[in-house]
């Protein structure tokens, strides 16, 4: 948990607390690396949260959809719903709440459409600050690889491996059993490895 609650006054701006202590600042929340002390002002608190979490939520949404437009819509849906349910979201981990909204929104969409739609990678704009050619190539590669997974496998792989949730957290987010997560994660990972091959060139680890 990287977000702490602390009502310090109605009118005070949210306070970002530098990281420290024994917080589990894993890759699972967009507010990792700093904690937000809530002020009790809904708009200010939500804005502070959303500003810090937007990059991670956007990345997760893109991984779930494979399309920047759909990802933008998905993040917006998640943020609006998180705002609407702010007291409940704030009581736990708002990033996790927003992420669950995204997963469920996608599930709803998949159920309605009976299929997943991925938009061509060339529709995705370039990422600033990195080598554009390599970024597009990697993006293309990753989108194609994820597109080969079933929707369920992709959700599991994204949340379990790319967002970095535990099996239990992934299961909770998706409303499935931990056993299902384990199975789908294993199959999805196996398939991704077969598609993407060796990744050590791009890894720090």
């Amino acid at each position: 948990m990287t977000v702490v609650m602390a009502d310090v006054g109605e009118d005070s701006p949210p306070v970002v607390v530098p990281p420290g202590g024994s917080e589990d600042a894993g890759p699972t929340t967009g507010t990792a690396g700093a904690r937000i002390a809530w002020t009790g002002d809904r708009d200010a608190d939500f804005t502070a949260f959303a500003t810090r979490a937007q990059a991670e939520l956007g990345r997760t949404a893109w991984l779930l959809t494979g399309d920047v437009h759909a990802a933008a819509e998905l993040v917006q849906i998640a943020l609006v719903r998180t705002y609407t349910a702010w007291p409940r979201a704030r009581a736990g981990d708002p990033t996790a709440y927003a992420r669950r909204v995204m997963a469920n929104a996608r599930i709803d969409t998949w159920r309605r459409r009976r299929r997943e739609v991925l938009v061509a990678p060339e529709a995705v704009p370039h990422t600033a600050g990195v080598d554009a050619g390599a970024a597009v190539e990697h993006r293309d590669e990753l989108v194609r690889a994820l597109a080969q997974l079933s929707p369920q496998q992709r959700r599991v792989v994204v949340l379990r491996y790319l967002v970095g949730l535990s099996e239990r957290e992934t299961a909770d987010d998706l409303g499935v059993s931990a056993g299902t997560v384990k199975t789908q994660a294993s199959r999805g990972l196996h398939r991704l490895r077969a598609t993407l091959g060796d990744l050590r060139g791009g890894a720090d680890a």
Partner: protein
Amino acid sequence: MPESTSDEDWVAGLRDLARDAAPAVPVDVSGAVRRGRRRRAVRRAATGGGALLAGCAVVAVGLAAVPSLLGGLGSSSDDSGSASMADAGDVAGGQSAASSVDLSVEDLAAAVADGSIAFDGATSDGAVPAPEAGGTVEPLVVVQVGTPDPDAYLRALGAAVDVRGVLSTPRDVTAAQWPDAMTRCLDGAGWDVTAEGDGWRAEVQPHDARSFLADVGTCAGGLSVR
């Protein structure tokens, strides 16, 4: 043939790849706040006012509230436009005597255009009390069936609202994809909209009618039906 890496190492590489490859996804935080406020207000009005016709399989307009709340706008019902106004009923005491009807986007636009429902600034002219002011206002239920002709659709909207805030780069969608794209766009804008068959339905507070139409215009204008 490179030697095999452990799953853990491979996943670390995958995570790096995803981090480097992920494009910047535009996020409108202030828009989310604005739309969240609106969604919250709609929900509070709907539940707090006891206005929803719970349990009814109603795809309907609870327009009964509108004419009586309009007060100075005269008649308790207005069937002259394409927007069908339900019987005015007695909503002053929280009773809904609505005979419910569907309302299309074009209907709503026509009603707003001809003044039957026209009040984003409801509280300023005193015509319609905002939910926060304690008014009991039933939501309009706007139903979209199928994919309309885009030009005619935008023309109808343009009669009621200024439809110009369209996305700079319209997305190409097929006619079959249009309802779902609209649903997601309107949902993202904070409206209570649900996909239904080959279309969608949305619940809109009367005082939000103009904002809703503007967002419909923005969403529709952001889609290019091929």
